[in-house]
C-alpha cells in the first residue's frame, strides 16, 4: 500500500497552462509538505500544512497555490506555467512538525513545461 501517493507521475504541458498535482497520505499524519527538486537534485521546501493550516510558505510565486481539503490531502495548483517550473515535485507527510518525526515522501511528479 502506498503511504504517500501523488498524481500524475508525469505531466507535460505548455507554457501558460494551469495544472494541478494531487497528493494523498494514508498514514494518519497531521503535516503535509510540497518539495521541489530541480535539475541539480536540490530539494527545497515550498509549503507545509498542519491540520489543513498553512505553516510554511517559502517565498514561492503566488502562481503556486496549495489546497488542503482535509489533513490527508494536499494538492498543488499552478497557474500560468513557466519554463522554469519544470522540476520534480514531491509531496510528503509527517506527524506534527519535522523535528523528530520521519518525513515520508511520495514518488514524485515530473513536470515538464514546453
Amino acid at each position, binding site marked *: 500500500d502506498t503511504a*504517500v501517493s501523488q498524481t500524475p507521475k508525469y505531466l507535460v504541458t505548455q507554457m501558460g497552462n494551469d495544472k494541478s498535482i494531487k497528493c494523498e497520505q494514508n498514514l494518519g499524519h497531521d503535516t503535509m509538505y510540497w518539495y521541489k527538486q530541480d535539475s*541539480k*537534485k*536540490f*530539494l*527545497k*521546501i515550498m509549503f*507545509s500544512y498542519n491540520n489543513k493550516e498553512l*505553516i*510554511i510558505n*517559502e517565498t514561492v510565486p503566488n502562481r503556486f497555490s496549495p489546497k488542503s481539503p482535509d489533513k490527508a490531502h494536499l494538492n498543488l495548483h499552478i497557474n500560468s506555467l513557466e519554463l522554469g517550473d519544470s522540476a520534480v515535485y*514531491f509531496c*510528503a507527510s509527517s506527524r506534527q*512538525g*519535522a*523535528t*523528530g518525526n*520521519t*518525513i*515520508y*515522501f*511520495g*514518488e*514524485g511528479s515530473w513536470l515538464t513545461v514546453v
Partner: protein
Amino acid sequence: GESVGLHLPTLSVQEGDNSIINCAYSNSASDYFIWYKQESGKGPQFIIDIRSNMDKRQGQRVTVLLNKTVKHLSLQIAATQPGDSAVYFCAETDNGATNKLIFGTGTLLAVQP
C-alpha cells in the same frame, strides 16, 4: 543563514567496501538530522536519523556519526551493495518556529561490481 552541504558530490566504491558520505551543516541550533536515500526515479527514502544529544547511531548496515564541535555529519554504509547506488541527502531541521527540514545538495554513490 542556515545551510547544509556535502563535501563529495560523487562517491565511487567497490562492491563489498565500506562507504562514507560526509555532510557539513552551519546552523549550530539544529537538533535533529536525517539521512535520506533517493534512487533514480523515486522519492527520498528515510535511512536513519540522529538527535543532537547523540554522537552515533547504528542501523542495519548503516551508522550515522554526528560531530557537533565541527558541525559535521557522516553516513557509513558497511559492505556496500549495488542496491545502495543512489543519491544520498543529509537534512537538518531548522529548529525554528516553522520546524522545517533543510536538505543538503546530495552525494551520488556509485557502487562498482
